[in-house]
């Protein structure tokens, strides 16, 4: 009995026999071509939504938090739900760009720029909510540890304060990471763009990149360090967001499972959001050769895994509620499934636990249309997960006398819709002016960049020109 294994090469990450030049052209021509009319239409629509956001924030600050549906037992409603939801979406970008980079998952290069941009815009949308949901926004700077004559510091015990640090750090690191990755590509656009203003602007932001060996060496190191810094943030941010709930004593919030459960949920929703955006963009901009069905399948696998982690967490919550013997916790979980908010709970279960199960089928997870549908379903489900956690626990807590139903108002809804205006306006600007794929990195994972000029024995072998096709594994 002896087995020998053959080397099985990975399937090519980029389809269609591109060379470096055609890749550069495919991505950066999008920025160099005249602006399509459709872009203006979409940007206009997004701007209208952005205006809606600004108006609703203005009215909120003018009138007070009372314009929302918040009430006495339910002190946090849509604002906090939206905050957690947007922050969660942001996670995919950092996970793709930092963790997958450290794990040398080369397929990430096709989508990392894109996903990081999404992260930054999602965190911007998220950051709005904790700021505007406070009663007195004009003194919100008191959450920062600013030295003052009263020697009055913020309360370092409060998870909300940890949130302030966690989210602001996350945003800063994500932005830096994104920008560092952009530098070589900005230089590429600088070199190719005709307009003078474009040359100046891209040239400024390219920081004098000339592609020297020294530049590449510095670039690779700083990128690696930032990836290392960003990696713990992927876990810490949503862990700390979950502490807002887990550190409290409210039944249904006070659970130790929250950090891993929130992180899994965040990755779950983030990947779904990346897929939603990617499926649209690859089609519109003709990037199917870069963002291939293989990418979609890989991402769907992550959705399947994280979806099951989330589903497992839902089950464990119920188990611990029963096993822990705390009557309030038992009651809250029974009420979630059968009480006044059962509709929200079952939407959540259907979207987050049941819908990813379709991805056990290879056919479905390679189906672009179906993936698009599920990616939206997952994001709806994850919004409802945050709704169920935030609202049901507060609505029916310890004293039955204080139980009360919460429903949103018009302003709750349009503030949320308005954040899509901010998100899409930013995203459309990104698509228009920045290379949406990391061209330099992408070239690095092309076979042309990795000529295997030596065999296993160390003998020189002339480089092969053709691209190896995938071979089936054979067992003898």
């Amino acid at each position, binding site marked *: 009995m002896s087995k020998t294994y053959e080397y099985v090469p990975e399937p090519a990450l980029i389809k269609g026999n591109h060379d470096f030049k055609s890749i550069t052209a495919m991505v950066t021509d999008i920025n160099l071509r005249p602006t399509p009319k459709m872009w203006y239409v979409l940007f206009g629509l997004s701007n209208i939504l952005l205006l809606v956001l600004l108006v609703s924030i203005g009215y909120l600050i003018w*009138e*007070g*938090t*009372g314009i929302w*549906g*918040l*009430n*006495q*037992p339910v*002190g*946090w409603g849509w604002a906090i739900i939206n905050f957690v939801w947007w922050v969660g979406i942001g996670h995919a970008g950092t996970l793709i760009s930092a963790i997958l980079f450290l794990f040398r998952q080369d397929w990430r290069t096709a989508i990392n720029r894109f996903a990081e941009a999404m992260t930054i815009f999602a965190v911007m949308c998220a950051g709005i909510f904790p700021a505007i*949901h*406070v*009663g*007195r926004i004009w*003194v*919100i700077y*008191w*959450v920062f540890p600013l030295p003052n004559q009263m020697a*009055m*510091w*913020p*309360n370092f*015990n*409060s*998870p*909300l*304060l940890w949130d*302030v640090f966690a989210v602001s750090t996350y945003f800063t690191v994500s932005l830096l990471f994104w920008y560092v990755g952009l530098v070589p590509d900005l230089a590429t656009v600088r070199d190719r763009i005709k307009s003078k203003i474009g040359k100046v602007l891209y040239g400024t932001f390219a920081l004098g990149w000339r592609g020297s060996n020294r530049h590449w060496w510095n670039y690779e190191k700083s990128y690696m360090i930032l990836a290392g810094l960003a990696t713990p943030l992927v876990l810490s941010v949503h862990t700390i967001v979950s502490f*807002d709930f887990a*550190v*409290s*004593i*409210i039944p249904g919030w006070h659970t130790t499972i929250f950090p891993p459960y929130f992180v899994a949920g965040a990755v779950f929703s983030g990947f779904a959001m990346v897929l939603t955006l990617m499926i649209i963009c690859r089609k519109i901009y003709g990037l199917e050769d870069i963002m291939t069905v293989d990418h979609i399948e890989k991402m769907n696998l992550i959705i399947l895994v994280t979806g099951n982690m989330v589903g497992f967490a839902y089950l464990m919550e119920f188990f611990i509620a029963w096993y822990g*013997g*705390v*009557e*309030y916790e038992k*009651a809250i979980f029974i009420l979630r499934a059968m009480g*006044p908010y059962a509709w929200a709970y079952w939407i959540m279960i259907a979207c987050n636990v049941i819908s990813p199960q379709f991805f056990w089928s290879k056919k479905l997870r390679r189906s672009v249309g179906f993936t698009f549908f599920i990616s939206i379903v997952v994001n709806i489900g994850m919004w409802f997960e945050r709704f169920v956690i935030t609202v049901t626990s*507060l609505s029916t*807590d*310890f*004293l*039955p*006398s*204080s*139980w*009360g*139903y919460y*429903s949103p108002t018009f302003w709750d809804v349009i503030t949320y819709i308005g954040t899509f205006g901010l998100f899409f306006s930013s995203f459309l600007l990104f698509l228009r002016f920045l290379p949406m794929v990391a061209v330099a990195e992408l070239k690095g994972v092309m076979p042309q960049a990795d000529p295997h000029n030596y065999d296993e024995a160390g003998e020189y072998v002339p480089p092969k020109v053709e691209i190896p096709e995938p071979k089936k594994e054979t067992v003898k």
Partner: protein
Amino acid sequence: MSDQSNKTTYWKSLNELAQNEEYKKFEEREFAENATELTDQVSRRSFLRVMGASIALAGFASCRKPVQKIMPYARQPEDLVLGEPHFYATAMPFQDTVTGLIVENNEGRPTKLEGNEEHPSSGGRTSIYHQAGILSMYDPDRSRSPQRDGESVSKDDFINFASDHFSDRNRSVLFISEGNSSPTYHRLKDQILSEFSGAEWVTYEPFSEDNAIEGTQMAFGSRLRTVNHFDEADLVISLDDDFMSPYGHKNSVENAYKTTQRRKVTSTDDEMSRIYIVENAYTTTGSYADHRMKLKSSEIEAFTFALAGRLAGSVSGLSAFDGVNNDFSNHDWVDRLAEELLDHRGNAIVTAGQDHSPAMHAAVAAINAALDNAGNTVTYHELPYRDDRNEREAFSNAVSEMQAGRFDTVVLVGTNPIFTAPADLGFADALANVDTRIHLAEYIDETSRVCNWHVNRAHFLEAWGDGLSYTGHRSVIQPQILPLFDGLSEVELLATILNGEESSGYDLVQETWEEYLDGDFTRAWEVVLHDGLDENSGFDTASVSISGNLGSEIQDHLNEGPVSGMEINIRPDATLFDGRFANNGWLQELPEPMTKITWDNVALMSPATAESLGLPSERSFRTNNVPTVRISAGGETIEIAAWIQPGHADDSITLTVGYGRDNVGRVADGVGIDTYPLRTSQAMLFQGADVEATGSSYEIACVQDHYSLEGRDMIRTANMDEYRENPEFASFKSFHGFEVPGMKEAERAGTAHQGPVSLFTEQYGPDHEPQWGMAIDLNACFGCGVCTIACQAENNIPVIGKREVGRRRIMHWIRTDRYFEGDQDNPKVYHQPVPCMHCELAPCEQVCPVAATTHSDDGMNQMTYNRCIGTRYCANNCPFKVRRFNFFNYAKEYLTTGDDPEIIQMAMNPDVTVRFRGVIEKCSYCVQRVNKAKIKSRIETGSKKPADGSVKTACQQACPANAITFGDLTDENSEVSQHKMNERNYVMLEEMNVRPRTSYLAKLRNTNSELA
């Protein structure tokens, strides 16, 4: 400004300043913007003039300081320290009783009413009506001047008219008055009746004790007031008498105090009285009773006769009821109650609801007399001021005479019969037949609008007056401020009619009192003013015996059958009474004690009745909308929201009055439904009606959406037998056994009764003294809600309106939770006041990002409004949900609406910050009172620990049941420490280890094991 300061240099006296026209003009010009604050009647000048006068009066009357700007006193009154309130004794009239009060007066502004401990009908306690009285006075919607045919005129115009009109002593004048016990009023009344030969005088109160008085006429042959001494009775049988509630009985404060006092239990050796109640709607007294039976109102009379009939076999004197045989003759409650009454001869009380028939009151009076309760636990008193006639009949007759055109003038003294008179009397038509109609009222109300003359009435805190308490104790009503709108009091009006010129209420009252006070009048008068009552007063007890005519008089009533099918009951409202408090925001927003509804009246019905009408028998948790019903009786139809009240009698609907006002005031208008049209002189309490579901719905703002305790242990209760068997029944151990982690360890450590052991050992300020704590005796609380209003008055809590309450944003710092237990048809009800628990390990403090809520050294959980940024995290993390958030700028809306917001601003307590939008607020344990007491103690005794009892929170002070105790936990002898050491003491949610400083004493019921 320099010009002004020059002038001030030359002031010699207040009078000189007041007469300085130029100065006045200057003032008016400079502050023209705010000059609307006071109407022209009280100008700054007249204010200062009278202020000078009142200083001369050695401070009996206090006065209002100018509100426009803060000026130093040119001559500061000797006894006035700015920032130190003064306290004066006065009394609040309510129908024909008064309750003694103490008024807190801050530099001329009365800001808080509290009970007068010396006064027997108060004993230091109050009801919701007393607490809310202060807001009624500062109500900017009160009428500001007399009106002739709807046009505002000056007070002098009215006085000129009255002087002219009433100079003709031959006029046939009808006086219709509200109940009034004032000796001055009755002195003037007698004078008027003797001078105006054609005058007639009737009293009308929509809800009165007239039937009870007619009952004594039937039973004893004389018209007497019934006084129940609940502190002396071992057994109380209430037949639909809600005697502890302010809307059920005008002596409710004393009743509640004495009932609960008789039921205070500190150890297993103590005894409680036993209360049985038979009633229609679920009342607070019903929830406090040991046994309750629901019965349609119309059946309660038959039940009473059956009980009397049963007793007739065992005691003499009840022969009138021999042979009564009705549906209830073999009822087990009749058996049981008869047995209990015979066991407790001489120390029981049987009492009947005041709106029930005279015959039923006669039966009750006869039972009390036959069982020797009369003279012991029940006493009867002749009312010196009351005419010996059936007052309701007299009123009906007067209305028909008005209709017939017998009167050329009608003077309505304070009552509002257009709104409240029985619908069948045709009062409005009759009134239109009188040429001259004069109405004294605080508001331009329904009656004022159909009168030629409206005279604006001074509030009792603005005018001199006097009155008798329910038991006849005579008090002087001492004003606290000059009339804000320069009105007349009722005695001033009567004196104007009599004398044709304006008379000072002060002189009128003094003139009356000269007769009562012996010795040096000035000295005796000062003593009365100081004490708040005349010590040597009180009604004489009448000796009674059952009249021989009872049998014949009652014979016709014995066989009156109940209403078959659906009946409706019309009752006074828990918060608005007969509608007189309709424009009081505090009362409108006070949750009705049993339904927890604010800002509305509803049709109460049992779940079974609702089902029979095709309505859902349970309320939806998700919506404020409730179905409505159409109720038709006597040709009138109303549509009103239906509300399920578990424990309500079946086939019966209870409606309350006072709502559905139009054009009375900004608070009252458009709230609820007017149910008076259904009330006729023949059906003042109940009648048959057609009821059907309409299919539409109506939005109700209810502050407690969930009825049930869900089997949780927030309320712990036992009956007396269980308590004696296991005195520690309320301990955590008894409730939860060892299921909770840490309990076994606690058992080993011997601290199981305190709950599970904890990993935390820290304690705030362990070495600091004092440490504050509160204990609330659930065995005393009957859920009246006065703590909420007292807190609202003390702590400047805004009124937020129905829409905001409906969104569950009520601001009350102390709420009373109401839970139903048992089956829907016959549940038990528990009340639990919930202020901030002041947890030692407060979960709110740990989560605030900016440390806006922190712990004080003396163990209080403090809220720093200035630091709060409004994340609401603390409110979320509070397991008791006692934290309140200013979602809007409620205080601004409440305090700056209208043309002259300065008026309502004067009602604010200067010791408490008014909170801005976007901050959390909550119960502070009345920290302003605590600190005041600490400072005082430090100055006077050098001790930082105020003596026990020297600091009382507002809720504690107001509670008629003494349910709340507050004090220093480091003093082992303090009352609160004693309560906390009691075996019935428990805290909510021990297993959370938040260590609340507010604890509860478990509820007890003295049930009859044979009936249970």
